[in-house]
């Protein structure tokens, strides 16, 4: 494998050198099919974690026949270690609204909603001003699309797209069974595109640069640039826009404090990579695409880290399905028992098996992803779990 230079890019967070609403105006002059095809060719994948191809989502939504469709921007951003959407919405909201409007136009949807997490309420006043600018602009150019804000009320699981929809409908934020997917049966039973904040901003950038230019960023598997939320033991904490496809070694070289022992990629739902795997692990491939990276140095207890994650999962599990509700609690109790010497170290193997069962038996991504961090921490830092 050739070593890839860590390249910084500046697409999403750069100031508006071309007005995002000019991009919108230029785009809606083209044919809808052509724009959707451009989105597919760009290779853009959802930035909310699941990594579903955005162009395909738009295509499927455009094929739905319905009197009303919705475009929902998922700004629930609750994954510990993730804060890039806050930055995008505070610094370049017009790119997001432009992307939402293009999605709306391409799929014949007229209503857009930004689902903003309650913890970000301090952003509402500024966002509402920006939304008014957008709504006026849309009227001015004769585009039948308007946006408003829906404020969440504090629940991580509402970031899951069907739970988010339940919540908007005034219900408990419990994920639905899939299928049907939101593009078939979403908000109020209508076809709905749920997309991440960064995804919509990227979509606007694809329309600005064209797919051919856009794919020049990144590796074969993943295209374009990506925002990384970097926190933990790093002198450069914050949001950084990087090309996809770099190794963790390069990443740590750039962002670590010289004493990095582990990197959590993809947030607590992702994987914890130990030093011995830094060289061979590429950020972005096979992991979640949320872009949260937390850096731990050698002073950190990985037992403590895992305990903190599990506390999070226990609290945020919606409790709807047993494998997740009981499983998260058992994993937490289990590592405590091993640490206290009440259980033999071999018990850890059983706990890993339990987490694998949760992966197949849980209803939504929350329960399904606990095994990622659990197994990677327990396997790579076994001594720390025991002593």
């Amino acid at each position: 494998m050739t070593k890839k230079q860590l390249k910084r890019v500046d697409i999403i967070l750069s100031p508006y050198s071309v007005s995002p609403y000019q991009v919108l105006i230029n785009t809606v002059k083209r044919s809808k099919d052509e724009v959707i095809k451009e989105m597919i060719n760009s290779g853009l994948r959802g930035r909310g974690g699941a990594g579903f191809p955005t162009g395909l989502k738009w295509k499927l939504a455009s094929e739905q026949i319905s009197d009303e469709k919705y475009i929902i921007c998922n700004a629930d951003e609750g994954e510990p270690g993730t804060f890039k959407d806050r930055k995008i919405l505070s610094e370049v909201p017009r790119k997001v609204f432009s992307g939402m409007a293009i999605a709306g136009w391409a799929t014949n949807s007229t209503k857009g909603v930004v689902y903003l997490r309650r913890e970000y309420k301090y952003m509402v006043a500024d966002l509402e001003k920006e939304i008014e600018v957008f709504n006026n602009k849309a009227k001015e150019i004769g585009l039948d699309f308007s946006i408003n804000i829906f404020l969440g009320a504090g629940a991580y699981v509402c970031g899951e797209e069907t739970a988010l929809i339940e919540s908007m409908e005034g219900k408990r934020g419990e994920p639905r069974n899939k299928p049907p997917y939101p593009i078939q049966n979403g908000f109020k039973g209508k076809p709905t595109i749920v997309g991440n904040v960064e995804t919509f901003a990227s979509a606007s950038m694809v329309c600005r640069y064209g797919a051919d230019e856009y794919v020049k960023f990144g590796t074969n598997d993943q295209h374009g640039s990506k925002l990384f939320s970097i926190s933990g033991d790093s002198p450069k904490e914050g949001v950084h826009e990087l090309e996809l496809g770099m190794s963790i070694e390069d990443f740590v070289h750039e962002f670590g404090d010289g004493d990095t022992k582990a990197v959590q990629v993809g947030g607590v739902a992702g994987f914890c990579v130990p030093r011995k795997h830094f060289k061979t692990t590429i950020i972005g491939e096979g992991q979640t695409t949320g872009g949260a990276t937390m850096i731990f140095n050698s002073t950190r207890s990985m037992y403590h880290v895992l305990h903190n994650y599990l506390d999070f999962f226990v609290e945020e599990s919606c409790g709807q399905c047993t494998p997740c509700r009981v499983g998260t609690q058992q994993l937490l109790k289990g590592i405590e028992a091993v640490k206290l010497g009440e259980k033999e170290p071999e018990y850890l193997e059983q706990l890993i098996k339990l987490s694998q069962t949760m992966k197949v038996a849980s209803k939504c991504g929350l329960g399904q992803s606990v095994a990622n961090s659990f197994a990677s921490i327990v396997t790579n830092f076994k001594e720390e779990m025991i002593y």
Partner: protein
Amino acid sequence: MSELKTVISDQIKKHGKGRDALMPILQSIVEKNNYLTNENMVEIAKELDISAADVYGTASFYSFLETEERGRYVIRICKSITCDMKGKGKVLRTIQDMLKIKIGETTQNKKFSLLETNCIGLCDQGPAMLINDDFYNHLTPEKVREVLVDYIRNKN
């Protein structure tokens, strides 16, 4: 019309009488009164023509829809991993010592409640906390003391 009825009818005007008016209604009552009483929830159920159990079920799901009495200023300190690593423990102890309350409690004058919360999206600026809607970052015992003194002296 009672104050509560006004709040409800304002939201119904905006969102219609359907169930999707429920969250905005609950939120605006919490914004006004800091928490939801059982009577509130029964009243809302009547207005929206749904069962009180449905209203309670929704309200109890969300951490910002308080169903217990809370103070006028609710402090939510982040306990997720990076804030924890950056010294959330010391900050929390300082708050507890100053206000003489533990997590989950409210001061006697009903001014402050103290809660822990999961990640609030300020991980690069931890330890972080919210007081009602406002955020405070890069906290140290000294800094949080200053913040609280300001609330104690200058806010009602």
